């Protein structure tokens, strides 16, 4: 659980509550897995502050995430105020290992390092692994996929179309 809160300040008591809140667009990930929670502290009895950072500026999931966090805290008997943080800007490095695995199992290839990412998206190098059969004989279909954070790929062996989560660093 420790790696979930790396680079962030989160009170241990609040982790189980936050770990119940799923990302609305990738429901197998929690907001902790995504690394969008930068700060969560209890300020007085049954009252907490949560600071969130958006993945992409225009990410439409942010408002839903804020609502879901409020619901989860209310259910746990907490009053919560939520703030949006712009700095430091979110990075795909903050996605947890558990999150990367869950993402892959869900059919979304996890982000590569920045150099490999560029090679895959720009130079058409075959390095993104198909989430269904594991082949790297894959092809970029579009640099923008079903959401701003993903690109669309196709496996040329098993023909599965799949999303690749772009590296943002």
């Amino acid at each position: 659980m420790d790696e979930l809160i790396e680079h962030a300040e989160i009170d241990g008591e609040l982790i189980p509550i936050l770990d119940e809140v799923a990302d609305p667009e990738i429901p197998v990930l929690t907001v902790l897995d995504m690394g969008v929670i930068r700060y969560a502290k209890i300020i007085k009895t049954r009252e907490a502050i949560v600071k969130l950072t958006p993945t992409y500026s225009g990410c439409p999931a942010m408002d839903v995430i804020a609502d879901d966090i409020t619901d989860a805290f209310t259910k746990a008997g907490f009053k919560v105020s939520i703030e949006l943080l712009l700095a430091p800007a979110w990075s795909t490095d903050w996605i947890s290992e558990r999150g990367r695995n869950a993402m892959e199992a869900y059919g979304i290839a996890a982000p590569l390092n920045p150099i490999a990412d560029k090679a895959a998206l720009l130079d058409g190098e075959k390095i993104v692994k198909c989430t269904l059969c594991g082949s790297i004989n894959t092809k970029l279909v579009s640099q923008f996929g079903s959401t701003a954070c993903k690109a669309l790929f196709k496996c040329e062996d098993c023909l599965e179309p799949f999303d690749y989560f772009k590296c943002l660093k």
Partner: protein
Amino acid sequence: MNNILYKYILGIADNCLILGQRLGELCGHGPSLETDIACTNISLDLFGQVRSYYQYASQIQGEGKSEDDIAMLRPEREYLNVLLVEQPNTDFAYVMTRQFLFDMYHYLFLQKLQESNDNTLEAIAKKSIKEVSYHLRFSSDWIKRLGDGTQESHDRIQLAVNDLWVYTDELFHQTEDDKVMVSNGVGVDTSVLKDNYYNSVSEVLISATIEVPESKYFQKGGKLGIHTEHLGFLLSDMQYMQRAYPNMSW
């Protein structure tokens, strides 16, 4: 001073809003599903950035206006975007050329805005540049594909480059207000970006077998609120709901 900062923020933000609106017009009308989704995704990034800018602008202005008020309730002459971003979606070659000519500027501009001594602008720049680097890759890629593609696609990109070139110089114009912002370390001195811009743009155009226009005749005015005829039509569409049903909200 606050009014100057307010206008400076609008100058940056309005570029994102108007280009985002233009790209949004392609929703459901892109030449292929993938490009349709790409253009609207870029639009979404720009709208996201614009929200951060307008929220900050509203805070600076201190009149309790919402980001929507700032986006939707100004008359044409109060929009401070450059002329380039309001040019219409004539065909896909124009869409990509407009995007490429803007993305290159946007990227170089944000690189410098990250050094602003205004913390909010610095934060927005650091966030946005990650997104804009993808936009620039996408549009550069299409310039090369179409420019170095078939005779037809080559000719169309060349035509779009020739036509839109006239709006590139304005990107580097500085109003009196801009100069105040530069001198106090908030704004970006765009004059130092110019050589790098034209060199980088030319490099992509040449690799796309497109001739770099030599014309030295340029258009300007957007940064002072004097626009081409196209902005009025864009706004009448964009502001329709607020004009027809004042104060409506989602």
